C-alpha cells in the first residue's frame, strides 16, 4: 500500500511536509499520462510536482491543476516511486485555503457548504446544501446551470425542500469543535 499517513499535521511547515511527500519524484510523467483530466490543466501533474520540489508557491497556487484532480487514484497506483500523489493533490487544496489563495471560489465554497451541512445535520441535505452554496457564490449563473438537474431530481422525489434548522445546535458541533482544537495544538 503506497498511501502514507499525513505528516503535514505534525510538521511545523505543511508546505515542507508536502515537499517531502514528492521529494523522490523523478519527473517520469507517468502521473500525467495516467491523469483523466490532464488536458484541462494549466500545468501537468508532473510539472506541478517539480514546482512543489522547488517551492514555487506563487506558481503552485496560481495553478488550477490540483483543483482539477477528481481523485481517481490512477497516478498513485502507477507512480513508479510509490508516491501518494492523490493525497498530495488533496493537501494542496487544503494549503491553498490555509494560505488565503482563494481564487477557486467555487470549489472552496462548495466544500465549505458541504462540511457546514454535515456539521448541522450529520448527513447531507442536498437541497439545503446546494442553496447555501449558491448563495455563497453571489453569482446567478451557476445556479441556473444546475436548475434542470434540480427540477428533475425534485420531480423524482430525490430531493425535497426541508425547513432549515437555523437555531438548533448542530448535530456534530462538539466533534467539529474538538477537531479545530486538536488542529490548533498541533
Amino acid at each position: 500500500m503506497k498511501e502514507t499517513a499525513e505528516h503535514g499535521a505534525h510538521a511545523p511547515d505543511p508546505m515542507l511536509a508536502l515537499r517531502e511527500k514528492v521529494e523522490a519524484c523523478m519527473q517520469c510523467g507517468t502521473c500525467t499520462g495516467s491523469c483523466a483530466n490532464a488536458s484541462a490543466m494549466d500545468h501537468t501533474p508532473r510539472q506541478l510536482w517539480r514546482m512543489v520540489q522547488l517551492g514555487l508557491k506563487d506558481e503552485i497556487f496560481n495553478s488550477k491543476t490540483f483543483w482539477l484532480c477528481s481523485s481517481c487514484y490512477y497516478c498513485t497506483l502507477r507512480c513508479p516511486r510509490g508516491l501518494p500523489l492523490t493525497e498530495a493533490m488533496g493537501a494542496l487544496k487544503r494549503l491553498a485555503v490555509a494560505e488565503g489563495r482563494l481564487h477557486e471560489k467555487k470549489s472552496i465554497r462548495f466544500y465549505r457548504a458541504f462540511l457546514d451541512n454535515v456539521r448541522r445535520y450529520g448527513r447531507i441535505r442536498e437541497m439545503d446544501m446546494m442553496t447555501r452554496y449558491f448563495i455563497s457564490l453571489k453569482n446567478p449563473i451557476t445556479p441556473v446551470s444546475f436548475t434542470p438537474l434540480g427540477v428533475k431530481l425534485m420531480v423524482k422525489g430525490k430531493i425535497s425542500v426541508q425547513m432549515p434548522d437555523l437555531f438548533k445546535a448542530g448535530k456534530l458541533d462538539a466533534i467539529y469543535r474538538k477537531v479545530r482544537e486538536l488542529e490548533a495544538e498541533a
Partner: protein
Amino acid sequence: MKYFYYPGCSLEGTAQEYDASTRALMGALGVELLDMEDWTCCGASAGEATSYLLSMVLPARNLALAEKTGIEADMLIPCSACYLNLKKVDDHTGRDDRLLDRINRALGEEGLAYNKGIRPRHLLDILATEIGAERVAGKVERRLNGLRVAPYYGCQALRPYEEFDDPQFPTSMEPLIEALGAEVHPWGMGAKCCGAGLMTTKKPVAISRVGELLSAARGADCIVTVCPMCQMNLDSFQGKVSRSAGEDLGLSVLYLPQLMGIALGLSEQDLKLNLNFAYAKNLQQKISAIPLAPKPHTVGLKQGNSHQAPA
C-alpha cells in the same frame, strides 16, 4: 451472513434506488443488513480538501458506532467514496498511533471510541467474493439472455486499495453479469474516471469524461454502476453530454443491484427503477419481453415478502 450497513448520504437522497435495490437484493440473497441508526456523513471529498483530521474523524465515527454494538461483522458500503473514506481511516491509523489517539480524543466528545475492530467493505467486494456468481445464478428467475451490459467500476472501489479486483483491469462484475444470463460488453473503460465531484466544481471537464464513457459504451444495452456519484454523472447529464458531443449518446444506466434484482425476479417498485433518469424504453421493453420463469426448485417456495430486507 450479516453486515453492518452504511448507506451514506447519497443513498438517502439522490441515490434512493441504490439503497432500495441493495436492500432488496441482499434480502433475496439471504444476507442480513444491520442498520446503524445514528450514522453520519463520511466527509466525502470535501473533508480531505478542508481538514485532514476531520476527514479521518467523520468516517471513524461510523466505525465506532458499529464497534459499540459489540457485534462482530464487516461493514457493507455501497458508495465508493464512503467506502474509500472508511477504508482510509483503517489504513492511516494502522501506521500512525498519534492519529488514532487524536481521532479518539475527538470522538470522545460523543462518548465514542474507534479501535479498528470493523472491516469496511465495498458492496461489489461482498457480491463478488463472499456471495459469488454461483449463488446468484441459483437464484435467477429471469435470465437476461441477449442483454449486453457494460460493467462500470469507477475509481474509488478499486484504487488505491487493491482489495478484491485488479485496480486497472477489473473483472469482478463479469461473472455476476454472466450469472444473470447477460453478456459483458467489452469496452476497456470500466476503471476510468467519470469526473466525480468536478461535475459540481468544473462542469465542462466532467461532461467530457462522461462523454468518453458513454460513447465507448455504444453497442451495450446498458451500463451498470456501483457508485452513486458515477451513476449521477452518467445518467443525469446525458442531454448536455450529447449536445456537447454533437450526437445522441443516450444509454440506460442502472445500478448493479437493480440489474441483478431484475434477474432475480424482484419487482420494479422494490428496485425503484422509476427513479433512474436513464432507463430507456427499449431496454424496458426488452426486459419485460423476457418471461419470469421460476426455476424448478424455487417453485412452491413462499413468494412475495421473502426478499424484504430485515429492518
